[in-house]
């Protein structure tokens, strides 16, 4: 998947998480509290538990279970979520839910500052303007708050914003999730990892709630609003929480982790600025069913909500459609490390040569964006080099896909093959090497031209590669000579394969309405039957092939 497609996916996930799931979640929470009379803490405990269960079941058995349970990131996320929830509860006990929702958007400003100072992600002009608009909305509500405890409210709103931001950053930086996101072989790994995270969250919540209920039980007069054991037996709380966990919290958490991993925490926080309008929308839509009303919202709340929405949209949309220049991610200006500059330039120059100046192929082989390659190519002052953190991977890609690869067929070249042969000896007890020399190839070149010859070599390379896809190393040594090294194969087993190889090569090749017939001579040598020296394998197989050629 290309970078832009992935980014678009990340933004769409953020919008769905906030505009759909967060909005519905807020309405569901309000409905449960005001109509079903549920206890909010126990409701959340049950929701987190059922969310964990459905994600773990969906994830199934697989890797990263152990790592997630042991990861400090997981426990940190759980503790932060728990604290942000408690602070949120305290905040909402002083002011209305709408005002609380607006005040906590101070997290957008904090997010911008944190990403700038701690992660060196410099904001652009739209991000700064959008954040100023959002902050204006927050200040408007903060001034309009009528309470004797303004100081406490401001402190709680600030803390709530800090914890919300910390939660989103922890989701972005969660290491097991980042690993799961990269593992294409295991698409359910993300669900599994987030299931385990939510399990930790729910267990922490439940343990805390249980301790509070126990303390309440020991008191002669229990404190109002804190949970008691009776609240655990409120069917409305349990069943509403159970359903909300499966239908709302589970997809919401999956989207939050996945999106923050792609678009980064500060951008996700910006999209959360749209939660105000999302909540109002869903409350309005569901009013006939839930009986909830939005009439309690004051004019100042509406103006502040509108400011926050405009600011959030301005940042989100300009960031979403901003052209991604990944120069800074891959390159740095160097004046001291001349070797690094030379190595970087050589890798690009050789790669372009190898792929006949096809930029897309070079970008794909090195796993470097095309624009980064262009920056190096156009660097007349010779000051740009790959960053240390990227160089190792790029150098490896260069070695495997370019330095050790045959540019015509994509198979290993002689040097790459010899390296792999030496490594194979230490790993495999039995190796069989086939040495192939094509017959009737020269007439093809002479009659139909070099393009036809190249086509034939590419076609034969493909056929050999497909013949033993999981246990062979295939190479073009040069000209019309190929080698196939079969791992863990005895000489007797290998003798049976010779006919197979010949059949694959001798199958007619169609080139521009012409049928080309190619044949091959095959030589075979086995390690350790014929020699105990891996280097000799190639010579022995070569001699064996010439013997067969002479007998033809």
């Amino acid at each position: 998947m290309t970078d832009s497609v992935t980014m678009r996916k990340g933004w769409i996930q953020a919008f769905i998480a906030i505009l759909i799931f967060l909005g519905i979640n807020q309405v569901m929470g309000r409905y449960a509290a005001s109509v079903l009379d549920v206890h909010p803490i126990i409701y959340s405990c049950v929701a987190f538990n059922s969310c964990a269960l459905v994600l773990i079941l969906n994830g199934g058995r697989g890797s990263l279970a152990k790592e997630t349970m042991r990861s400090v990131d997981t426990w940190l996320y759980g503790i932060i979520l728990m604290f942000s929830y408690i602070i949120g509860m305290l905040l909402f006990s002083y002011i209305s839910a709408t005002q609380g929702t607006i005040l906590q958007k101070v997290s957008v400003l904090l997010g911008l500052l944190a990403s700038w100072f701690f992660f060196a992600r410099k904001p652009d002009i739209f991000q700064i303007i959008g954040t100023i608009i959002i902050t204006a909305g927050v200040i408007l509500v903060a001034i309009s708050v009528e309470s004797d405890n303004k100081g406490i409210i401001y402190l709680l709103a600030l803390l709530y914003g800090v914890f919300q931001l910390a939660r989103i950053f922890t989701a972005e930086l969660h290491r097991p999730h980042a690993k799961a996101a990269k593992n294409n072989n295991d698409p359910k790994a993300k669900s599994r990892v987030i299931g385990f995270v939510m399990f930790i969250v729910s267990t922490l919540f439940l343990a805390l709630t249980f301790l509070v209920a126990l303390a309440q039980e020991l008191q002669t007069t229990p404190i109002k609003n804190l949970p008691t054991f009776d609240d655990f037996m409120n069917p409305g709380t349990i069943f509403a929480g159970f359903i909300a966990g499966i239908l709302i919290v589970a997809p919401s958490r999956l989207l939050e982790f996945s999106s923050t991993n792609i678009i980064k925490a500060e951008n996700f926080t910006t999209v959360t600025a749209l939660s105000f309008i999302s909540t109002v929308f869903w409350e309005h839509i569901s009013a006939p069913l839930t009986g909830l009303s939005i009439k309690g919202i004051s004019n100042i709340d509406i103006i502040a909500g509108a400011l926050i929405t405009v600011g959030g949209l301005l940042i989100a949309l300009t960031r979403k459609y901003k052209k991604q220049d990944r120069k800074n991610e891959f390159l740095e200006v160097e004046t001291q490390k001349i070797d690094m500059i030379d190595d970087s330039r050589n890798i690009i120059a050789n790669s372009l040569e190898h792929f006949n100046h096809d930029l897309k192929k070079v970008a794909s082989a090195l796993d470097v964006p095309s624009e980064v390659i262009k920056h190096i190519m156009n660097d007349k002052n010779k000051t740009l080099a790959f960053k240390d953190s990227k160089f190792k991977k790029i150098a490896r890609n260069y070695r495997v896909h370019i330095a050790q690869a045959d540019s015509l067929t994509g198979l290993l070249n002689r040097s790459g093959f010899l390296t792999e042969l030496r490594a194979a000896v230490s790993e495999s007890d039995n190796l069989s090497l086939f040495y192939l020399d094509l017959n009737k190839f020269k007439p093809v070149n002479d009659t139909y031209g070099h393009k036809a010859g190249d086509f034939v070599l590419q076609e034969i390379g493909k056929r050999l590669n497909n013949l033993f896809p999981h246990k062979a190393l295939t190479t073009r040594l040069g000209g019309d000579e190929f080698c196939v090294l079969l791992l863990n194969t005895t000489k007797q087993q290998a003798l049976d394969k010779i006919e197979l190889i010949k059949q694959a090569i001798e199958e007619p090749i169609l080139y521009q309405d012409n049928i080309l017939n190619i044949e091959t001579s095959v030589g075979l040598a086995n390690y350790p039957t014929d020699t105990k020296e891996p280097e000799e394998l190639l010579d022995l197989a070569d001699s064996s092939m010439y013997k067969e050629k002479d007998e033809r």
Partner: protein
Amino acid sequence: MTIEDRRKDSGFDEQHAYKSFNLKQQIDIERRADNLERLIEVQQQKKVYYLTLGFCIFLNVLLLSLGFIGLGG
């Protein structure tokens, strides 16, 4: 094909190993050191998975039971 690719093609299918019910038997007969390590890793991951899943089911059943008790009372 690189050394890492070859390791992947060593006949060891991790996804299949997670689904296997006779992992212990496979561990006993495994000869290759790197495969053995990976089989033991799979066994540990499965253990953590089942323990967590079991505890999670227990908590959910407990909470739902309390809800049903409340419904009856």
